[in-house]
């Protein structure tokens, strides 16, 4: 029944590949121009570099203190995700297993903020964070991401806990295990596939997030994130495209690497997050 003739298969293949290449062209241009000297960038953006200019990378890595920024991003993301996963899975477990007036209220209390745009609270959040000492610090940023990540994560976890048979934790409790022990030794391991989904989604979000660090962090390299540093770098080196493109590649590189290794979970996360959200 199906048209399996050779042209019928190859033509869409070629057209789509061509479109894919065109789609990627901006990314390709970014990489090409990050290894060119300034003169060549200005003369011809399209041309391949005459010789590879490592100097751009050495300069930008040193100037923005890339290792430090990378560490900052890593710490903020790790701390943020750790808290989101821990607190949301605990709450999701109880919210799903025990239905009463309190848990119904708590569930709504946790997920209704999904309706609140970040920009609605950003002005006063800055004030709250300053009062609590959460601005201008890496742990402070991580803790704020706990709050921002919880609504979605609680929603996903409490939905997933419902698919785990009650008998599993009930029998553990009957055997005398503590509630905390039952959760961490029995339930939490069973949640690992959905935990991977939550991690994949939240890594992409926190690692790339821009507005919260922009509001909370003022200048110091000790607390700057990668994206924020790239933003201020472009502000300073406005038209020095060879440097700005280098900074872009450096900022994007970790995300691409993460995507390559976590592709399966990211795609799964996007789908389940979207369908449930």
């Amino acid at each position, binding site marked *: 029944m199906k048209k399996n003739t050779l042209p019928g298969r190859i033509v869409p293949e070629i057209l789509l590949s061509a479109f894919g290449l065109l789609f990627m062209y901006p*990314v390709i*241009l970014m990489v090409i121009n990050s290894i060119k000297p300034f003169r060549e960038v200005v003369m011809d953006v399209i041309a391949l570099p005459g010789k590879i200019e490592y100097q751009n990378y050495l300069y930008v890595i040193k100037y923005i203190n890339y290792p430090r920024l990378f560490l900052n991003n890593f710490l903020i993301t790790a701390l943020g995700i750790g808290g989101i996963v821990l607190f949301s899975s605990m709450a999701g477990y109880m919210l799903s297993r025990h239905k009463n007036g309190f848990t119904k209220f708590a569930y709504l209390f946790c997920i209704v903020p999904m309706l609140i745009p970040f920009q609605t609270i950003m002005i006063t959040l800055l004030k709250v964070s300053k009062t609590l000492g959460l601005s201008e610090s890496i742990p402070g940023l991580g803790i704020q991401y706990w709050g921002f990540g919880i609504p979605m994560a609680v929603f996903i976890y409490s939905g997933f806990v419902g698919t785990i048979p009650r008998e599993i934790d009930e029998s553990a409790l009957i055997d005398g295990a503590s509630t905390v022990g039952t959760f961490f030794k029995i339930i939490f391991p069973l949640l690992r596939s959905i935990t991977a989904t939550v991690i994949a989604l939240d890594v992409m979000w926190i690692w790339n997030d821009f507005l919260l660090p922009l509001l909370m962090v003022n200048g110091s390299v000790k607390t700057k994130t990668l994206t924020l540093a790239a933003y201020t770098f472009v502000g300073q080196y406005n038209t020095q495209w060879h440097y700005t493109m280098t900074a872009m590649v450096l900022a994007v590189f970790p995300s691409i690497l993460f995507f390559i290794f976590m592709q399966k979970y990211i795609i799964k996360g996007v789908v389940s997050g979207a369908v449930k959200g």
Partner: protein
Amino acid sequence: MKSIGQRKTNKLEIVLFILPCLILVGVIFYTPFILSMFYSLTQWNGIAKEPVFIGLRNFIRLFTGDSGFVSSIIFTSKYAFFYIISSNVIALALAVLLVKKLLTANILRAVFFVPYIMSMIIVGFIWRFIFSQGFNSLSAITGWGIFDMSWLGDPGLAFVSVVMVAVWQSLGFYMVIYIAGLQALPEDVLEAAVVDGASAPRKFFSITLPLLGPSITTCLFLSLTNSIKVFDIILALTAGGPGGSTYSVTYDIYREAFQNNNYGYGAAKSLVLFIIVAGITVIIMKGFRSREVEL
């Protein structure tokens, strides 16, 4: 019968498991939200110690004497309209092509998804480079007029550029959702259509598309709420220019609060944004529910 040593999760434990989330959400969302409601009724520049209570004057000014806010609402609505249509149509088309058994399907799926994993700020800067420098070179090589146009300097074209870059960045996200939807379609129904002699377009519009309803609604909803909140791409690509023609609502709020230091007035604007987003979400959710009942 309860055996000795049996434990049951007690009420205190339930509360303790949930409490961290309640506190965090309370501090991060509800406290600033309530403070925003308070500050929206004041005039406060963030420097003066005490905000001055001025009642509803911020809100009155918003809708009567602020052409900037009104035009940012118009821009955002226009942007949302074109962004939703183009991103969904292109993403759906790509998804339909990429669920076929192509050799390159997996690579191409990854290719179209890559921009989505990059920060929108970075995406904005890359495209600013393409529009300003890349197009110069392309114009020199091809001689085509479209590369000579001022894609970021002309208000009309800047609008097109913003929509295009936003679609480029997020296309893969919607495509992935559509692919998942297409893969979940019942094979037998589709095959029955082919057996009955339905043409490919007929099959797509009469069977695939209606069956894809849930995925389409999800993508429309997500693209709508995302487009209302558009901020990063505009900041990096046009910074609101040229001549303030690409200020979105969120950008306008950001500028009001952090550049003009009108915190009270900014808070009033931010509440209007909340009412728009929450209103749309609630209406759409209700739509979802009533349809589910019908089915």
